[in-house]
């Protein structure tokens, strides 16, 4: 499946291991949380990259101590209208300082990409080909944002404060 990462279409090197399946001999692998907890040591010993996929009812805190060992955390949108993973994403980025790939899976639609990006997702499984085509369009639709989310974008309030400060500077 094509992957949109940092705004570009890339080959997805990761293999999703469904519970019960044997792990592939080579290559990085993504497992679900239960398997990660059960086979953590073995997975780390493979030494070729491991990621974890969380259900949107899983607690991200369960990964808190292992985040620097993971190459990918994948979150799920079973339906685009089920927004639990937005909270999971922000917690991973902002509370647990996760810096690796944060991947959106499931019903990922172009018109939700900007919200996802603002919450910290940087990779999107493109089951829908329009996701690949519309990145610039969708992410460029807005240039100003009210909420601080830890995505590095300036907030409107921040811009106002900067302007007020420079106005004061100028009037002195």
């Amino acid at each position, binding site marked *: 499946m094509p992957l949109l990462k940092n705004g570009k279409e890339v080959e997805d090197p990761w293999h999703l291991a469904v519970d019960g399946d044997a792990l592939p001999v080579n290559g990085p692998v993504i497992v679900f949380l239960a398997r990660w907890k059960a086979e953590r040591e073995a997975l780390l010993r493979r030494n070729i990259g491991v990621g974890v996929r969380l259900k949107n009812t899983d607690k991200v805190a369960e990964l808190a101590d292992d985040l620097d060992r993971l190459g990918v955390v994948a979150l799920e949108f079973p339906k685009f*209208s*089920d927004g*639990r993973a937005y909270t999971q994403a922000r917690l991973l980025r902002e509370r647990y300082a996760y810096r690796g790939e944060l991947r959106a899976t499931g019903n990922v639609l172009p018109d*939700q990409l900007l*919200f996802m990006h603002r*919450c910290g997702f940087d990779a999107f499984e493109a089951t829908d080909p*329009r996701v690949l085509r519309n990145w610039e369009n969708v992410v460029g639709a*807005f240039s100003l944002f009210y909420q601080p989310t830890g995505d590095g974008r300036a907030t*409107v309030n921040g811009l106002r*404060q900067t302007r007020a400060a420079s106005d004061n500077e100028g009037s002195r």
Partner: protein
Amino acid sequence: MYAYDEYDQAIVDQRVSQFRDQVRRRIAGELSEDEFRPLRLQNGLYLQLHAYMLRIAVPYGTLSSAQLRQLGYIARRYDRNYGHFTTRQNIQFNWIKLEETPDLLADLARVQMHGIQTSGNCIRNITADQYAGAAADEIEDGRVYCEIMRQWSTFHPEFSFLPRKFKIALTGSPNDRAAVRVHDIGIRMHRNAAGEIGFEVMVGGGQGRTPMIAKTIREFLPKEHLLSYLEAILRVYNQFGRRDNLFKARIKILVHEIGVEKMRAAVEDEWQQIKDGPLVLPQATIDAIAAHFAPPDYRPQAAEQPEVERLRRSDGEFALWERTNLFPHKVPGYVIVNASLKPEGLAPGDATAEQMEIVADLADRYSFSEVRVTHAQNLVLPHVAVKDLPEVWRRLREIGFATPNLGLITDIIACPGLDYCSLANARSIPVAQRLTHRFSDLARVHDIGELQIKISGCINACGHHHVGHIGILGVEKNGEEFYQITLGGSADQDASIGTILGPAVSSKAVIDAVDNLIGTYLDIRQGRETFLHTVRRVGVAPFKERLYATA
């Protein structure tokens, strides 16, 4: 009032461009209706029984005269010359063409308006006391905090796909005119023991099929923490609110199922981790927003107004209107004027393009260019000098907006019902119209006194029937319209959910039924006791007995 800066304006303009593209993709077939639906809904565009309906946000019920005039233009240009003010201080246009909506939204953006988040499972338009900034009884102008919340909630990336819609209301007065206790979050400004002003935060109120009164989750929240505390509540709700059943997805069900103690613990736990983060509101930020709501340039007014005095003595109609449709202003010599959108025989909350334009003109001349929309579907001129009352009254009377019935039996709240709405089971507007005909005698209306009738055409309760002193709920039985009656509801600071009286009555019988209830009240009331007080004192039994004895 608040005026956009270039940042606010850019966001709304960008939204118009985005939606223009989405509509183009829909019309070109690149988006399916299923995919387009949430996109149009987040711009307030519904597909109703006969046409698209566009719901436009009136943030915390405050409009400038220029905005109201533009709404009049939109009514004429894009609709059938009228609009409908709603129970959430918004306005709806009922006859909209999909392909015209991008232009319509661009016309709105020119006056700093939009339909953002007037639908969908997101944080909806935040509502407030319609008298904010003017009322003699308020602690502080709550619109400052409503605007802060408006900005925070606009396109909030984490909370745009909540389990269900989310409504926040705020009152800055101890006398709650914003029905905060029947909102997902209700906020009441008050002073703590140290004299500081902050917020009581209530959570889990709502109407719909499971009406509930909100519970206090925090007695006193300092102003600087408003946004972080809201973010904590929303975050808990986004994670734990039910998504398995549409009818159990509101936060009230979560609060009910886990209990307010557990809810409080979860929110506090989350809040502790974010309260000192980037959502803290510095005083400078609050001050900058508050500057927008600086009081207008009130003029000293003569204590004696002989002209007004004379009219009051000579014209009983004016005297009645003055007694009924005004509210005390915080500045001497000024009053708050309510324009009643409940004339006999018309749909509650409807206004024509011409009516909107005339109210806008009145606002320019007599109310510092400000207008308010009330959740009871009336309009308000918030700052009128007493000396101008005769002229304001005459002009309002000319357009049919001076019925002296504010807060009385014919000041009826009604949802659009089956005349427009695809969710409705029965019509609401014709019931309201028939009631205004039955109770057209003003002397009788005033004798009955304070009474709120609220009518919903289905269990979603947009007409607030659960909190009507008399609530009327339309239901459908074998293809016929029936109406279930509740008594004793209230949406104010003593909020309560009404009690169902008994079997629903037919459409034919519903007006007589209300009349019957009024008869019982008039017979058993004590002194100046209101209808609600009588119901609270005696319960529903005497009403029920007499109603169904004659039925």
